[in-house]
């Protein structure tokens, strides 16, 4: 049985007999995919852009999330006359499987109505992209004009190009890597252990106990949030400024602004994110190693690729540093791919890709325009593209 539903916060594709085989060998029968679209698909179905969200993102890159009222996480990038122009392109964004914004994940009900909890299969970036392919099939879109995303979204972009290259005309992996580094796995492990150490986690069955590991998840978020920033940005924003006081308290309250800021980040996160989803999605990122899937040689992942790539990194991003992007670019060059690579000067750390970065916007506008010309799509002013 197939169902297409309008949820309060976008569309739902419900598949009762999806038979989605996962990397770990198990099969998801019932599959719900939460997604949202913007703009209109053209007659040739050649103007679709898939936006892949990051670890804690959702399917609302643009406009407000109708449920929470929160602004879209990429509102500066996606919308009418914005770099990803919804007047020109048909934009799709899907909540990843394993997530908690509507797509099937550990908090989803099983056949007996109880949530999966830790019985949910461990999923991978490859599985997330498989589920996106299912959505594309159901929307009857043969291929994507562009697939774009930052961080974990960038991993999905690379997975798309490697495993489903025939459906990718252009790819923009931003602030990402072809494998999760040891240091990044380490940070994720700290976050997971914080959740597991919270007694309210209840072995993953917290929903049945009507509780949630709020403290553990908040600590996980606090630790992770530090990795999304940079020392320079923290110093610039907070320095050693005190929070609502003139002198040190000689205690363990939030004396410093940075402490207060991090506590706020942690507490507000638990209201919008599921702890088990955090375990599963961080695991999916940890498992990502594209070269390993292709005999240890990254260039082989992109052999014969026809897609054009635009790789973007940021100078102060120490979570996914420029060196990771350079390795990726070298592999793409070795595969003979059409690749552009831009490193953007910014002191905002990994999170720069979500923020107002005019140089990133110019880069993406220019790259998409050139790709649109190559694909024969009309230009921004509606004129016909030249066919060189």
């Amino acid at each position: 049985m197939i169902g297409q539903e309008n949820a309060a916060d976008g569309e739902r594709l419900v598949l009762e007999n999806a038979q989605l085989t996962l990397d770990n060998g198990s099969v998801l029968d019932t599959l719900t995919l939460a997604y949202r679209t913007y703009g209109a698909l053209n007659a040739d179905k050649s103007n679709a852009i898939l936006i892949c969200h990051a670890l804690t993102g959702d399917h609302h890159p643009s406009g407000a999330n109708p449920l929470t009222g929160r602004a879209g996480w990429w509102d500066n990038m996606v919308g009418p006359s914005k770099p990803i122009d919804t007047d020109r392109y048909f934009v799709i964004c899907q909540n990843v499987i394993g997530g908690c914004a509507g797509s099937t994940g550990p908090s989803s009900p099983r056949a007996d109505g109880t949530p999966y909890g830790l019985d949910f299969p461990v999923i991978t970036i490859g599985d997330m992209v498989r589920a996106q392919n299912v959505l594309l099939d159901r929307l009857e879109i043969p291929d994507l004009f562009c697939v774009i995303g930052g961080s974990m979204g960038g991993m999905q972009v690379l997975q798309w190009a490697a495993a489903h290259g025939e459906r990718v005309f252009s790819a923009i992996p931003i602030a990402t890597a072809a494998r999760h580094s040891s240091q990044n796995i380490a940070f994720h492990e700290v976050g997971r252990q914080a959740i597991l150490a919270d007694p309210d986690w209840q072995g993953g069955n917290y929903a049945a106990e009507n509780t949630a590991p709020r403290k553990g998840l908040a600590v996980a978020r606090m630790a992770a949030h530090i990795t999304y920033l940079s020392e320079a940005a923290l110093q610039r924003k907070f320095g050693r400024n005190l929070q609502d006081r003139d002198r040190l308290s000689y205690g363990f309250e939030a004396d410093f602004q940075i402490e207060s800021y991090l506590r706020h980040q942690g507490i507000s996160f638990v209201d919008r994110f599921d702890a088990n989803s955090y375990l599963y999605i961080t695991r999916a990122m940890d498992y990502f190693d594209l070269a390993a899937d292709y005999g240890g040689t990254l260039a082989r992942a992109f052999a014969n690729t026809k897609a054009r790539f635009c790789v973007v990194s940021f100078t102060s991003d120490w979570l996914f540093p420029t060196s990771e992007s350079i390795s990726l670019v070298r592999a793409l060059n070795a595969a003979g791919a059409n690749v552009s690579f831009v490193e953007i000067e910014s002191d905002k750390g990994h999170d720069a890709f979500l923020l107002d970065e005019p140089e990133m916007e110019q880069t993406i506008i220019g790259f998409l325009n050139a790709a649109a010309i190559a694909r024969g799509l009309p230009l921004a002013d509606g004129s016909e593209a030249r066919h060189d």
Partner: protein
Amino acid sequence: MIDPRASANGNLNEKRIDLMLIASLVEQGTRVLDIGCGNGVLMELLVAERGVDARGLELSQQGVNACVSRGLAVVQGNADTDLSYYPDQGFDTVILSQTLQATQRPKEVLQEMSRIGSKLIVSIPNFGHWRIRLALALRGRMPETQALSATWYETANIHLCSMLDLIDLCDALSLRVETCLTVTNGKVHQSSGRPSARQNLMAELVVFELTR
């Protein structure tokens, strides 16, 4: 279609002539790698006039960002270290426009270029030009010309050579000169094979078309 060689007149500055001459040596619709592509002027010219599939490598991030925002396929990288990541014979033509003299290891760069492409186009400011010889001989000073405008302590041009010096290196690498285009006072002279000592004295700028 313009004839770039016909357009190479005194109204255009030297750099522009250099690019026009290079473009005249590039075949229609081929795969081209431009090493040291700067802000992408040559790549844009090649795409517009020759319909090539152009890729660029540029050291300065500023130059790269300018190229990519104009829709050109350019990556940040260093000619001395990053050419090894390109596949054998991945391109029809590999261009090095007034960049050889700024590389750490010009010999290895030329070697890599001949591995990557079947045709090489290399342009250099000719250090054998009489005005440069005169500057050193009469003034006893390092020459500063329009093409070589930086002081000796600030210049990026660490491996300057005359066109005959470059020919010696090409011999050592078994690279054959197919075409030699020289620029003197804004006028272009074309020859094939080895340039003469007189050419080395008169040419301000030279563009070589080389094959293995």
